[in-house]
């Protein structure tokens, strides 16, 4: 199968007055259509840099990034919801369409439909301040989906939430992504999250980061993230990846 996105020998150096910091030391990675791929690694290893480069927020220093075709649209979900407080929930969700000049009656209807499907329709005309953290992040996901992206980049989307909200929201997000049939790259430092949510987990090394190992997450009774957490395999993967991370403080 031809990958949706293939990354070869991707390097990134950061310059500052004291010299050069090698963040990415040659990343090789393929992402296939319809999968959720998690990227885990020690903090500061350049996970976010990788997403930034893939979505053209930053320039790479060297290497190759190839998308299956030129027209692939990226949806980026950030750590914070970044909902504009002066826009209603619906207006926030339409932001991407406005920016990309594709706001039509039809696309607007589709967004309203998304909000309805995921239980946010009654808040459509409310302002973000009246929503809880979990709901706001759900709105952020709908905003990301509104532009109908081919691939989703999720940059620690749950890290700003409390534990319980986080578990429930990751369940939600998993269901939404699978239901909409999207491909997703999830960057996280939470091993349990990555194992329970994804089809594959890529473990990055310390800086300069390379892909140390890739796990196909296979479980006999694979189901939703919450259920996956209860399986025997979950713990085994957890142990293995924990050892791969090789964290010494």
């Amino acid at each position: 199968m031809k990958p949706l996105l293939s990354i070869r020998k991707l390097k990134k150096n950061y310059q500052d007055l004291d010299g050069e910091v090698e963040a990415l030391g040659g990343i090789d990675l393929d992402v296939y259509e319809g999968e959720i791929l998690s990227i885990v690694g020690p903090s500061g290893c350049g996970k976010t840099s990788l997403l930034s480069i893939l979505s053209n927020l930053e320039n790479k220093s060297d290497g190759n990034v190839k998308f299956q075709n030129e027209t692939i649209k990226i949806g980026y979900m950030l750590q914070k919801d970044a909902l504009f407080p002066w826009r209603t929930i619906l207006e926030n969700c339409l932001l991407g369409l406005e920016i990309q000049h594709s706001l039509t009656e039809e696309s607007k209807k589709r967004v309203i439909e998304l909000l309805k499907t995921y239980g946010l329709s009654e808040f459509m005309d409310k302002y973000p301040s009246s929503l809880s953290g979990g709901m706001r992040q759900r709105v952020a996901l709908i905003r990301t989906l509104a532009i109908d992206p081919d691939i989703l980049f999720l940059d620690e989307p749950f890290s700003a939430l409390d534990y319980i909200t986080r578990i429930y929201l990751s369940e939600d997000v998993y269901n939404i992504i699978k239901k909409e049939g999207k491909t997703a790259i999830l960057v996280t430092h939470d091993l349990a999250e990555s194992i329970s949510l994804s089809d594959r987990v890529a473990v990055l090394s310390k800086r300069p980061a390379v892909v140390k190992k890739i796990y196909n997450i296979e479980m006999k009774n694979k189901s939703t993230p919450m259920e996956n957490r209860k399986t025997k395999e979950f713990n085994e993967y957890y142990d293995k990846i924990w050892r791969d991370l090789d964290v010494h403080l």
Partner: protein
Amino acid sequence: MSTCSIEHKNFLKKRRNKKILVHVMQFLIIFCFLVLWEIASKTGMINSFLSSSPSRVVRTFLSLLEQNNLWNHVYITVYETLISFFIASLLGFVIATLLWWFKTLAKIFDPYLTVLNSLPKVALGPLIIIWIGANMNSIIFMALMISLFITIINIYSGFQQIDYYYTTLLKTLNASKRQIFVKLVVPGNKNNIINCLKVNISMSLIGVIMGELLVSKEGLGYLIMYGSQVFNINLVITSVVLLGIISYLMYLIVSLIEKKIVKNY
């Protein structure tokens, strides 16, 4: 809400009482001040020639109305203030936009802006008269010198304080710089810009009065200047009171506009 509880009723009552108290106290303060001032000057506790009195102020006001074309002076001052207010606001916004758009420009001009802003403009008064002439343009120029730089600095610093995450979000959507400005920077700065206008209106008034003290033949600043030269304290104080009323009214207008524009989210 017909079914509100006694607790809620009490809460509303307390809120209302507090509001009434504030208004009553505000009125009492000015009332007592005026009464004391009047009594003090009537009984000779203070020299009414040097410190005037409320009744003298009223008499001066009435005679100014009859004989000296008071409204013309008020009109001139308000007119000059509004012109410099609009020029300073517009120019301030445009320059702040340019500084935001071209960050290097902002870095280059940063020390100049600071110096120009903190420079005591009165010191430039004589120069301004020599350069521009003893006319209304000088007054407006003086007012601009006082209000423009602070407007630029305030609006620009508001532009800079836009959350990094918001900008990143728009960049992930491939927004152009113009889109970031229109969709994020301006709406995100609505409150800040209104506040700048509030500061600007009083700055413009200060500038205009300063200018009028230096050069003019008309306006409230001129009346103050003239009054102090001929030792007519009644005239000086009447003009100052009028100035206070004018600045309060202008502030009120901006506040009304603010209420119209600013939504509470």
